[in-house]
């Protein structure tokens, strides 16, 4: 496979990986919403410092997953492009 073909393959792979990741992380959203509501962690006014930390982790899960997916996909493309 020549370089152009390899770049194209990597881009396609990255897109598939990105789409899979974007679909998968949707499953997290309801659970995060449920855990953050008043009947669970009540992240609007947590009782303890531990709950506050857990709420911060829950808040950052989605963005971390998204960053991870984007980083992974972008990294694959960038890494291939830079070689």
């Amino acid at each position, binding site marked *: 496979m020549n370089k152009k073909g390899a770049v194209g393959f990597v881009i396609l792979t990255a897109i598939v990986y990105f789409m899979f990741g974007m679909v998968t992380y949707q499953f997290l959203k*309801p659970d*995060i919403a449920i855990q953050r509501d008043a009947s669970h962690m009540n992240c609007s006014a*947590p009782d303890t410092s531990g709950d506050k930390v857990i709420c*911060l982790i829950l*808040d950052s899960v989605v*963005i971390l997953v998204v960053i991870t997916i984007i980083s992974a996909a972008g990294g694959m493309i960038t890494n291939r492009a830079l070689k």
Partner: protein
Amino acid sequence: MKKRQKNSLIEAYRRKILVGAMIMFIFFLGFVLAGTISVTLDSPQINYTTNSSSNTLQCGSTTDALYFVNSSLYTNYSGTWEINQTNIATPQPAGEYRLEGTSGVVVDNIGYSNLTNSGATRGTSGIIGNSFNFSTGDDLSYNQTAFNYSDISTQPVTLIVWFNPSSLSGEKVLAWKGKTNGQAIFELMQKDDKLRARSNRNSGTTEVLCTTTISTGSWYMGIIISNSTGIYCGTNGVIENSTTNSNPIDPYVEANFSIGAGSYGATTWGNFTGALDEISVFNVSLNSSQLLELYNSGNAARPTTNTLNSTFLFPFPIISTWNCEFCDIEGDCESATSNRTEPYVLENSRTYNTTTYETSYENFIINVTANSSLTDVNLIYNGTSYDTSKSGSIYSTTLSVPNVNTQTNVTFYWNFTYAGQYFSSNSNNQTIEPIEFGLCNATLDVPFWNITFKDESDSSDINATINSATFEYYFGNNTLNKTLSFTNTTANDYYTFCFSVNRTIYIDAHIPYASTGYPQRIFNPPTTAFTNSTTNTTLYLISTAEGIYVTFQVINTADQPLEGVLTNITRNIGGTETLVSSGETGADGAITYWLDPDNVYTANFYLSPYDLYSVTQLFTQTTYTITLGGTTTSTIYDYHRGVDYSITPINSYLSNGTSYNFNFTISSSYWALEEYGFNITNENRTLYGNTLGTTSNGSTLSLTLNTGTNETFIMNYYWTINSTNTTSVRSWKIIDLSDDSFSLAHLGEDFDSYVDSGLFGLTDFGTGLILFFIIIAVVGVTKVKWGISNTSFGIGLIFALVALFDVSLGILPNPINAVDHFPTIIMGILFIGAMAREGLR
């Protein structure tokens, strides 16, 4: 002279006083001699009587006059009195000759006509006192004027003569009243050894002979009655013969009334030999009772006193005041008045069965009228005393009829306790019939109970033996019963038991039964009523290969074994809950049953004061522990057996504002479902929809609902078996994803909020310092890792990070509060300057 006149006057007064005294004495003597009459009353207190029985009052009287002529009992109230006189009042005679005198005239005690004695020997011993003896010649006593036509001949006459003959031959006149032609107005004659009565009429038969044969040396009472119907001859108080003659006596010159011989004019004939005594002439015809009374009185025909007792029978209600009165022949009457007292106990009615059966519970009732002094009433039944209960005037008691084995008459009566006195009612009889329960035979042929046997596994008929069974049977309340002990070691396919009486009988049975290859079970049903509508009972057995012994250990909440717990095992066979075995726990609190582990049984346990404990399930283990002591009945039925169900959506959360199809799919392979379904409510229990089904083996039910803005959907689903609901709940959380609850924005908001609340002990300075180091670290790592040293890139990277922390996350402290996002603006200006510088380069 004056003195002589004075003495004469005194003498005259003395004579007047003496005459007055004599007159008073004569009046007094006359009063005494006139006879007295006394009346005595006997009205005893009656303790007990019934309003239908006859009660007796005695009224008696004594007089020294000859006879009573009347007696009566009457009352000043209305009522009928039954009079039962024991003595007979006899009429006054027209003449009575006791022949007591030994000289002078022959006295007529009535004072009518004395006789002149001529030759009779007086003073000889008579039937009473003295008599006249006639022996030879023309001995007689007579009076021509006695009993003349004007007195008697046209009226009925009765002549009584007591005589003791010394000779039996010839015609001998005892007494007569004749005419100068020799005919008799009335005559009593001894003719040989018979007595003859004669009365000459103007035609027809004039005489009749008595039948009694007379002997010498004995006293006889001779009787002649002559009246308008005929002539009667009698001896010793009994009229023996008579002749009919209604013709009158021809008037003619009357002759003597004489005794001892006939006499008219100078003619004397028919001289009697022997003794005569107590001669009475009545101007009436005495009846047979009066004649017998005279004969049997012991006073011949001359009673000096007479006693008359009358018995009066009366029913209740009582006539409170009554009188009795007697009058004698002298016209004296006396009466007496008595106030009756109420009986202590007046029985109004009694209730009982005249016939009963062994073991019956019989009720006995007596209704009485009595005052408060009646303090106790007991029933004496077959010699045993039973207390009664009182309700108004009714006393009642119940008792169990004893076993007698043969038909028996039992006597019972009532005892009363009244003011310290004890008395009894009259008695009644009750007939006790025997009863018999047993295997049917030629004489015991009315079937009440038919018992057959089946294999519990396949319901096939089998033969079985009955081993030492007992049947306690009774009619009443089981205070008394009879017992049939029954054993049959030869296996039979049925046993039919019969009862001897066509009435409902109660049977408490204990039946151990078994068969070859089938371990013994005990059938001990509750006491059951049986009638001639035959009760069919099937007893089930489990084979050795298919059953197991299951032991139930019954304890209380303190883990102590309970003895005497009533237990039974039932099973639903053909839609009927059927008793298959029963018994009581032993001292160890355990009982063992032979059960099929593949069948569902219901085990029941009861011991007072504990509540009934009931459990329905497969008994596959050899031991179960049952704990009694709860306050409520525990009944467990396995209505999950064979039931499968599923519910969709399967997720535990739903999105708001979304329509979902809710399904409830149920199937039952063991129980028949009567109904099943579900409903959907929200978190506030507001109903959003429901549906149900009735297919016995189940189906799928669907309901489509939109979650809307609700927070929760709750499905309440159920199924009904044997009218018992089995319910459960499934819920879904409804979430709202429109507020980006999962978004990055929350990270900054929460972090800022938590920091403000003191999380990690951070202040704005500390937070800014940490962010500063993060920015420096990112930029440093970028340069070191990738060797990017371009100023514009570095400032741009810092700008991006500051903007992220400040604008996006809002966690970067702002030193200039008057200008929002001041750090970002500064870094933006610097980044623009760096880009411009890069472009100018």
